[in-house]
């Protein structure tokens, strides 16, 4: 390639991708005194979190309509509240919607209400629920510290690694014999069996099953789903473990706070700055080539892009060992989650008051069999007739998020969506998603069907096209046990470090995975900064 290479500036650290993990990494690096630039290919920041419908006037809607697991340490250290982060609702109620209009409410704020609600279905389950919550809370709390730590390698001969395993072993032992046995047994189990062991209420079991598989391509009978449930519970939001919160202004506001924090620390953030290539010289990073032909001069690159994009496209397979490339290619990451937004002319009637509706997360997953059958259809590339979904109306508790015409926007997350419809194209999938969702809504909130003014959907393939993450998977890669912790994204790459010196992975494809947690970004940034200090 000839032609003038324009200088794009010189920085200590360049961050590829302006998603929340990239911004977290940038903010931390900038706070550590490094000169930092964030390079976002698209016109907006936020990656998947703020990915919204392009038409229909859904102004501030984003794919991540609710946030769970945002690291509290990060909120503090990046002073996100000073930079504008506020929660409209800090603990949303989980409301299971049932055909026929019945509701089951699990409220993190009000255990008594939860007990009453479950008690209407089964007094036994109502008695058992608090202990079940406490049990998962204890087990996930033991795992939680490891979400903020770099996973060890499998090189047992190294003392630092042995120490980390001892730490892990100690965390388990500290649970006590009973809980440790419980954890070692259930961690490999599926949520179907776990829920069946404890409860008899279909709606409650469905809710547990749904939370265990959201974002992944699992059914409740897929072993591993207890692990994903525990990981979800291990997150802490607004001081409450395992809770779900609604940021004021939606995910975009969270992203703005992160960006503001990064900028305040001196980081430069560029949008429409697509990285074309990570330049490598003699096995180490030697800058970035942007699509516009300019070059960024830097020796440390943190990439929040999908691990495959980072290593196989931006670096290139030729710079890497073929077995590592093979491992990366085998990592599973086809998306199974889609979004639909609807603007309604009137408040939908789910049997909840407007204020309750505003602080609830509605889940339609009436029973475990329903979820499993949905998964069965999706695994063959078929779309289930009825989809499991999570529904939120963020605008009700947060005036910032009302649609442009101040009409309620219903944000729907659909599970069990095939990445590819067998013998159909993506437009047909999109159409089917809209049709299934409107039908479900008409069913669950009678009368709402006639008030629909606008509908938009986002398929996994569209997520892929918009973010460049191959597969369009929410977590970049599935978070099953075989792709978690020291196996994430692939053996040999789990310490955020890549074989290219100076290049680090900091996106959802790395431990602990997806969700708007900021943890992969933070862990990677800390590891990279520590390595720079010690010269490796």
């Amino acid at each position, binding site marked *: 390639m000839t032609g003038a290479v324009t200088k794009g500036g010189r920085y200590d650290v360049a961050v590829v991708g302006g998603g929340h993990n990239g911004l977290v990494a940038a903010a931390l690096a900038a706070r550590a005194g490094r000169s930092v630039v964030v390079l976002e290919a698209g016109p907006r920041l936020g990656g998947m979190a703020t990915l919204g419908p392009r038409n229909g006037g859904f102004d501030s809607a984003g794919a991540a309509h609710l946030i769970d697991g945002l690291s509290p340490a990060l909120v503090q250290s990046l002073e996100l509240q000073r930079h504008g982060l506020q929660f409209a609702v800090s603990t949303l109620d989980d409301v299971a919607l049932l055909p026929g209009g019945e509701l089951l409410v699990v409220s993190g704020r009000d255990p008594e209400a939860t007990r009453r609600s479950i008690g209407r279905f089964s007094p036994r389950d109502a008695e058992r629920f608090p202990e079940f919550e406490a049990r998962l809370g204890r087990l996930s709390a033991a795992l939680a510290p490891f979400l903020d730590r770099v996973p060890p390698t499998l090189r047992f001969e190294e003392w630092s690694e042995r120490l980390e395993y001892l730490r892990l072993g100690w965390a388990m032992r500290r649970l006590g014999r009973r809980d440790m046995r419980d954890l070692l047994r259930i961690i490999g189990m599926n949520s179907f069996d776990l829920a069946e062991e404890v409860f008899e209420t279909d709606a409650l079991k469905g809710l547990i099953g749904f939370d265990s598989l959201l974002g992944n391509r699992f059914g409740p009978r897929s*072993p591993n789903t207890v692990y994903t449930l525990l990981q979800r519970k291990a997150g802490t939001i607004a001081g409450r473990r395992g809770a779900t919160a609604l940021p004021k202004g939606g995910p975009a506001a969270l992203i703005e706070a992160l960006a503001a924090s990064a900028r305040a620390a001196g980081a430069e953030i560029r949008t429409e700055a697509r990285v074309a290539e990570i330049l490598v010289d003699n096995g180490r990073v030697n800058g970035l080539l942007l699509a516009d032909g300019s070059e960024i001069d830097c020796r440390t690159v943190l990439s929040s892009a999908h691990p495959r994009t980072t290593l196989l496209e931006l670096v290139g397979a030729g710079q890497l060992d073929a077995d590592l490339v093979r491992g990366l290619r*085998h990592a599973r990451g086809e998306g199974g989650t889609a979004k639909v937004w609807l603007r309604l002319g009137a408040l939908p009637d789910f049997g909840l008051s407007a204020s309750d509706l505003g602080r609830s997360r509605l889940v339609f997953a009436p029973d475990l069999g329903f979820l499993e059958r949905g998964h069965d259809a999706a695994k063959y590339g078929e779309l289930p007739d009825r989809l499991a979904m999570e529904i939120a109306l963020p605008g009700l508790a947060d005036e910032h998020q009302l649609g442009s015409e101040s009409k309620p926007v219903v944000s729907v997350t659909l599970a069990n969506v095939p990445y590819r419809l067998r013998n159909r194209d993506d437009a047909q999938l999109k159409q089917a998603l809209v049709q299934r969702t409107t039908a479900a809504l008409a069913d669950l909130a009678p009368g709402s069907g006639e008030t629909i003014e606008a509908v938009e959907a986002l398929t996994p393939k569209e997520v892929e096209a918009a973010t460049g993450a191959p597969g369009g998977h929410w977590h970049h890669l599935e978070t099953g046990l075989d792709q978690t912790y020291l196996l994430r994204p692939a*053996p040999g790459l789990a310490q955020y470090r890549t074989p290219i010196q100076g290049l680090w992975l900091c996106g959802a494809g790395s431990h602990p995975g997806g969700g708007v947690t900021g943890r992969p970004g933070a862990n990677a940034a800390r590891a990279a900064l520590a390595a720079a200090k010690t010269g490796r």
Partner: protein
Amino acid sequence: MKRYDAIVIGAGHNGLTAAAYLARAGLDVVVLERREAIGGAAISEERHPGFLYSSCSYVCSLLRAEIMRDLDLSKHGLRIIPYENSTVIARNGESLGFFHDPAKTRQSIARHSRRDADAYAEFNRDLYRQCRMIRPLLLETPPDPTSFRLRDIKGLRKLQKAFAQLGEDGLAQAMQFWTMSCGDFLDRYFESELLKGSLAGNSIIGTALGPYSPGSAYVLLHHVMGDLDGHVGAWGFAVGGMGAVSDALAGAAREHGAEIRTGAEVEQLIVRGGRVEGVALAGGEEIHAARVVSNLDVKRTYNRLVAPSDLPGDFLEAVNNFKIRGSSGKLNIALDRLPEFPALASEPLLQRGGILISESMEYLERGYDDWKNGLWSREPFLDITIPTHYDPTMAPPGKHYMSVFVQYVPPTLADGPWTPEKRDAFGKTVLDTIELYSPGFRDIVLDCWVRTPADIENEVGLTEGNIFQGELTLDQLLFNRPVPGYAQYRGPLAGLYMCGSSTHPGGGVMGAPGANAAREILHDAKIRRAA
């Protein structure tokens, strides 16, 4: 009144193994069997004149050579002949053979995909690596990771060493292997659906998991970690059917002085002061012993033989949470002559080994979906063997016995329990399936004995008819099997031991649970047999 040193409940192969080891160490042992015949699921029965059926279990690989030698089973008539090949046949007339000779297997796979043929060597290596790690653990008592006892710490150290010797790559592979689905594992190597389908068959036999369920890769290992005559992964026929295994074990037990009583159904255990002192038989007879060893699965042992009041509540809950799921059926068929499989016309010798019906991964996965919905697989996975190729004593001259193992078959159906009509319909599904691969097959069927999970439960006493006495999933292996904290063949009641396949290392006519349990009993009794 006579008091024994040990009572073994159930004359299945593990009960007999335990009895033989205990008797050999000098204990005074009695084995009590509910049925008139010994053997449990390892049994040969003449159900049609002149034909001997391996009624349930039908092939042998996992039986530990150590047990064969310790108990001198060949002296008691046991002969196991490895069958040298196996094959998968497809509806379109194609087949793929696995031969004793690797070059021949390579040729056969290469007809479907040259890439797969090359990858197969690496696949085998990777699988064998996992076998090497797991095999030495089969005859070990699983250590308790929550314990600080020297024995357990030593055991854990051994476990850790077994993993660590794999090296960094091997270890990463092992961790993935234990947690991933068989389908994902196979997708890493192969593109041919027929090849994947045939290899995945091993990951679903006896298991209520689909080939794309995470964790199913381990089950694959469970079926290839056996060995015969130095060939890891080889399977064989017991001459005289699988009952010959039980007969030989019984012979060994009797030789060492054990008593075996059939028609002796234990109704309950006699528990005094938290200690098991003997058993009460259905007829009211009481037999006393210093200890009782149960070959029954963990649910039957603790739910049926012991009063709940004698057991800690959380233990009982854990027992009830142990997953024993019926997912398999069996057809025993008497044939007038050998069937013809057009797909094997060019390689007729492949008929001598296992013949799999397993078209693709989706074929298996859809079969599993049916099971989840309370149906038997509309298009079932079949593992067909014709033992009379090797053992002509099992059928009259010129006639043949065919064993057909069927996956997936639910223990109860969506529309209610099994009935004779439903059993016939199930049998018809299987025969119709075979007919697709062997036109004219029905015409040579002289007798067909169909067995549903419910039949196996009723006759043999395996809960839900599960052939492993409990699912082989990660949450039910090693120190989790059958109940965390009780994985060392002992339960909460003093004097009561478990020796069935519910315990480590699980089912498959291995004998290892029986041998391991006997070792633990002798350890407690402080008896060390001179080598």
